[in-house]
């Protein structure tokens, strides 16, 4: 449970950074996940959102570029989709829905292949090029959810409900499809911190990791294919650490890519 608890704490702490201002009058971070300013000196920006403005034909100002570079560097160190499992509030919704799916024993529902997200990423970028606006941001659930929670907008209810039902109907929910996740997964293919099946010879085939993993396709090779690296190299791995938590044989641990 260690990593799960740490992850929840991280997700809530990040929301708290944004909410301490409007709720308590103590301003730490202003803005939202798309772009923010912490303590008046640390800018951050979502590189994918910024990429869309660039594709729409707008060259962004210095602050946003520095912010996006800092964020990109950070995720190159800790793992690309760490955004998905440690930061994004949609993860909480998807995880709750997955938990209910498990409790209600819902097994036979739709699944989405792990490749669809890259198509959506491509479409989102194409939309920006052809419309000249950041069209995808009109609906982008990751940003809408974070923003509506931070700015206390009604959208939080509708988007949250939509994402929840979506995650009940489709295994893995929006997080299997999300173009923002797809973008961060591209960083994940080269990022430094990775989960490693370092003691894969101890694996007793209990399937617990496979059951709990939001992207189970990433586990197969490192765990089962002899001759392949025990490091989970796929960018689709979110570094959530659930496999580390559930494995009774302590097969997995966080490690460096190299």
């Amino acid at each position, binding site marked *: 449970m260690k990593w799960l608890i740490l992850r929840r704490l991280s997700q809530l702490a990040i929301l708290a950074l944004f909410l301490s201002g409007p709720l308590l009058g103590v301003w730490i971070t202003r*803005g939202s996940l*798309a772009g923010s300013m912490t303590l008046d000196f640390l800018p951050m920006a979502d590189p994918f959102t910024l990429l869309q*403005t660039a594709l729409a034909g*707008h060259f962004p100002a210095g602050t*946003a570029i520095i912010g996006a570079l800092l964020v990109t560097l950070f995720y190159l160190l800790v793992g690309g989709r760490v955004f998905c499992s440690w930061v994004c509030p949609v993860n909480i919704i998807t995880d709750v829905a997955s938990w209910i799916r498990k409790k209600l024993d819902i097994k036979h529902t*739709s699944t989405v292949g792990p490749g669809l997200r890259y198509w959506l990423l491509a479409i989102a970028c194409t939309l920006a090029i052809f419309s000249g606006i950041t*069209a995808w941001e009109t*609906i982008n659930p990751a*940003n809408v959810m974070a923003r509506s929670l931070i700015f206390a907008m009604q959208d939080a209810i509708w988007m949250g409900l939509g994402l929840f039902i979506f995650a009940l109907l489709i295994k893995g929910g929006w997080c299997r499809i999300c173009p923002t996740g797809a973008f961060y997964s591209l960083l994940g293919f080269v990022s430094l911190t990775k989960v490693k099946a370092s003691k894969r010879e101890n694996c007793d085939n209990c399937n617990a990791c496979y059951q709990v993993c939001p992207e189970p396709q990433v586990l197969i090779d490192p765990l089962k294919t002899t001759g392949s690296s025990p490091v989970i190299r796929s960018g689709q791995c979110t570094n959530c650490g659930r496999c580390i938590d559930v494995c009774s044989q302590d097969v997995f641990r966080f490690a460096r890519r190299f």
Partner: protein
Amino acid sequence: MKAASDIQQSGLTSRRKFLSGSAAAACGVALFGLGGCMAKDESGVILRPPGASEEFLGACIRCGQCVRACPYNTLKLVGLFGQGGTGSPYFEPRQVSCEMCEDLPCIKACPTGALDPQLTDVNKAKMGLAVLVDQETCLNYLGLRCGVCYRACPSIDKAITLDARHNQRSGKHTLFLPKIHSEHCTGCGKCEKSCVLEASAIKVLPRSLAKGELGHHYRLGWEEKEKKGSSLIPEALDLPDRMPEFTPPSFEEVKP
């Protein structure tokens, strides 16, 4: 028999797979359709913070830092079902108008330059253009002495002036008609906010909606005359005067 049931079984699963796959595809298409429709709707009647250009939605990352920077809570973010692009900033002058801060905190907070940092004088902001949309209810047009919009305007006597006209109804009074000068109006919305009517007779509209545009070949005679210092055509040209409603005297009357 066993083989038959196996085939049936696999038929069932493949049908189920097909159905669930189609459902997922339909969901995806529906989401994109929704996104597309909403994206189309982005150029609505909406007022942006100072310094926003025509291509604002191509530059704004919708982070909300301008909203946080606004000391008067003028700025709000568009909701998911609202007009003008989810999460982008706007304001409704009738609720809270722009106070035109001299230090432009909203522009300073913008990380992308979607709010143009070149705009340093708030009086040069062009957030919209006030238009006296309803002359039927405007108290000044009715001949009363309201003029609240005129006095609320931060650029009084520049952005809004009062044009004195004869009140034909009473025959002896003056109408003071508010007239907006687009060159000076920033679109702050103080006028719309202050209008004393139940619904404001003066409203701030996006410039693209409010402003007419002369044909580029148009030349205003009186301006050209002033520029040249004299008339552009020979002054001698004098057309004969024809009086209206002149009927020649009848033959009967002329006859002695």
